[in-house]
């Protein structure tokens, strides 16, 4: 039975009690992703689900504040009604991990710095977190940042907590920058170019002035996809300009109109094209290295079942056949040579206990990372063992 605090003071009390008893705590939003990452050494679970509700929303100011346990879908619906959005497009893991769709909390989304295909233009969750309140692993209530768009008062701790997987602090409230939704969108598909050329077309387009907001290549359908968003008039002219700009690559062109386009990118966002049996990896690299990475992996004999490229080739989702080390050695060796990082997103618990789920760091960086953890949580009370076996 998880502890379910109702306010920030309760959260602080629960964490202080855990410190006093040296009882490691796991933090949960809806617990939809507890099978991800390293298994935590936990004695208790602290659920933030009851700490819910939007406390401030000013559409004109482009700002929204919500308690950490607020369901993401509630926030999305509220924004939708004002024609606004979370521009970083948080992904939904249901296709990869099972479970119900749309079951994340905003605290969980920030804790994993989740973002989708628009990442390359609009930024990640980290770029949209203006400020927050939390309870640290020392049991102290701390706030940082603010609610305004430009702020350099003190250290930007928002960047630290975004993507910290609950290992530094339990977020209790987050203030986010929200943005207007585009009036419409369209997707230009180039089919039949093959993987290497398809990806080259994406990179060319990403350096074009046509403000392409998402660029993915799906080998399953041999489709290079380019999303354009904005006012109707702008989208149609840019689509034509872009098609001309890429004409040299050849291939058949096809256009997905508004709703089709949205559905397409939701599938890419959630990595649906690679769903199925096996282990799943997520690799972030320089866009021009995406294809080289996959080629080398094939060359190393890895049993690749399905893959998809997002972020103009800079993000590769992979599904491989199961193996004792989940192919970590092969994948990491290639990524280390190219530069970037690889995360094991899905594998059974025994594998995740054996293999580093997150990319190993050089020693100076690893010890700094540990000192930062200690600055917030010196007793390793929160999510102990989530990131690394040692902390």
């Amino acid at each position, binding site marked *: 039975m998880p*502890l379910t605090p*109702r306010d920030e003071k*309760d959260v602080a009390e*629960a964490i*202080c*009690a855990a410190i006093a*008893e040296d009882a490691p705590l796991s933090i949960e939003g809806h617990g939809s992703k507890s099978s991800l990452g390293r298994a935590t050494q936990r004695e208790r679970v602290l659920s933030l689900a*009851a700490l819910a509700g939007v406390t401030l929303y000013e559409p*004109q100011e482009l*700002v929204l504040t919500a308690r950490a346990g607020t369901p993401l879908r509630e926030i999305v619906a509220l924004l939708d009604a004002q*024609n606004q959005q979370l521009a970083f497009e948080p992904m939904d893991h249901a296709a990869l991990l099972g479970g119900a769709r749309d079951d994340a909390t905003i605290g969980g989304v920030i804790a994993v*710095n989740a973002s989708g295909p628009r990442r390359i233009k609009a*930024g*990640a969750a*980290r*770029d949209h977190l203006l400020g927050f309140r939390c309870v640290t692993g020392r049991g*102290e*209530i*701390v*706030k940082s940042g*603010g*609610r*305004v*768009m*430009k*702020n*350099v008062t*003190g*250290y*930007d*701790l928002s960047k*630290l907590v*975004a*993507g*910290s997987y609950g290992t530094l602090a339990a977020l209790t409230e987050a203030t986010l920058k929200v943005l*207007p*939704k585009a*009036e419409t969108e369209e997707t230009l598909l180039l089919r039949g170019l093959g993987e290497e050329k398809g990806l080259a077309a994406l990179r060319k387009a990403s*350096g074009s*002035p046509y*403000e392409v907001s998402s660029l993915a290549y799906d080998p399953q359908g041999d489709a290079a996809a380019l999303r354009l968003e*904005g*006012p109707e*008039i*702008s989208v149609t002219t*840019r689509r034509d300009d872009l098609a001309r700009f890429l004409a040299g690559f050849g291939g058949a062109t096809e256009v997905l109109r508004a709703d089709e386009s949205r559905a397409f990118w939701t599938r890419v966002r959630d990595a649906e094209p690679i769903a199925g049996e096996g282990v799943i990896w997520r690799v*972030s690299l320089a*866009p021009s*290295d995406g294809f080289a990475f996959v080629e080398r992996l094939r060359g190393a004999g890895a049993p690749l079942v399905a893959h998809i490229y997002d972020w103009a080739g800079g993000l590769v989702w992979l599904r491989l056949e199961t193996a004792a080390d989940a192919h970590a050695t092969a994948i990491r060796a290639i990524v280390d040579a190219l530069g970037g*990082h690889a995360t094991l997103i899905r594998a059974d618990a025994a594998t995740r206990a054996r293999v580093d789920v997150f990319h190993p760091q050089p020693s*100076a960086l690893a010890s*700094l*990372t540990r*000192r930062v*953890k*200690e*600055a*917030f949580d*010196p007793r390793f009370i929160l999510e102990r063992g989530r*990131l690394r076996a040692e902390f």
Partner: protein
Amino acid sequence: MSLVMPLPEQAIMARREELLARLRAILPAANVIADETARRAYECDALVMYRALPLVVVLPETVAQVSAIMALAQEMNVKVVPRGAGTSLSGGALPLEDGILLGMSKFNRILEVDFENRCARVQPGVQNLVISKAVEYAGFYYAPDPSSQIACTIGGNVGENAGGVHCLKYGLTTNNILGLEMVLMGGEILRLGGKHLDSELYDLMGLMTGSEGLLGVVTEVTVRLLQKPVSARGLLLAFPTVEAGARCVGAIIARGIIPGGLEMMDAATIGAVENFQPCGYPLDAGAIVIVELDGTPAEVDHLVAVVEQIARAEGATETRVSQSEAERLRFWAGRKNAFPAVSCIGPDYLCMDGTIPRGRLPEVLTRMDALAKFHGLRVANVFHAGDGNLHPLILYDASKEGEIERAEKLGADILRLCVEVGGVLTGEHGVGVEKRDLMGEMFDETDLAQQQRVKCAFDPQHRLNPGKVFPTLHRCAELGMMHVQGGKLPFPELPRF
């Protein structure tokens, strides 16, 4: 002057000769500046009211030298202040009398331009504008554009998380860098990020950005490059009052339009600008708003029409739309000259920098006026209206008895007002020494202690740029203590709350 810096440590001063000798073993003799006259050139940054003569100035040329200097400083317990171009407006690069001033000006090369991955690797001493100039031929640029961009360096931009008029749409420094190389106080060299997106585990690059030289010395930056929009047009909108201008800004954003630039000036600034270098601003306006829309010509034409219509509905007395590139630049010329122009109407000015929720603008301006009257000074206003970032320029005359102190008091009152309405002490210029003692207005003791613990993770002896940002220096050992209040719970296994 109200600012108190920690007293120079005599133990450090006493070992100056030894320090110089050991620095000369690391660097060519010409790169160790010990002579007093030469050191004077570094005695302040753009916050000129505070000055201090550095113990020694060093100008390293390689990362290995930076690393060796840092390790030496750590070993000898000497403080280090990193410096780019010294254009900081908050005293972030103010030297310490018992500290090494680490000038990064010789790190001035662009190491790699990679259009395919839309990025460039540059050394920290490269000026912001130089990056854009270097990639212009291929249609690219680096988006964050502080007004000081001819002079300020990318290392200093990272130090301050600098912004500019493009930042409403394209983000600040933090949103436009991909990788950093840095040297820690002990001399360790770290690389964060690279050409890929998002760090795994803690985003230390995000933390470094805006950390005002307190956590490490940046020795290389990978910046994101953007393709220049195919076209851009400007609108010059005049309003009878600042309130009307502010309403128009809100209405534009509410309509879902995020312009490439959205700036506002009040009557005092308009007058100063027209006096300085006339560019045709309407002199009878209470406020003017400059809007820049960029994108494809079709999109820009469409948006120009929408914005013009919004402006009329909000009571604009005049709306001009640029018909040529020259005219667009003319609209901006006055805004870009606002600071020097204002310095012609009063001998000195103090440039403040707070951000407020945009909707509170009219109220804040009215109350700011009252505060200025109370202190017997004048204030001119230019602001990044789109994101609520204000730059009140407080006019004063340093030669008049007590005016500096009054200007400082007014500045502090203005920043307190910003925080009171839900804003922050600084939007882009940093805390430095200038706003250091106001940090308590925004943060309580616990918040500040947590920030300083982060500092301890990087620099446990507080040798890197001490005396900046935090009002009181705590020792890391004391910050590490835990106070567990909750104590033991009687039945820990039972669900609570």
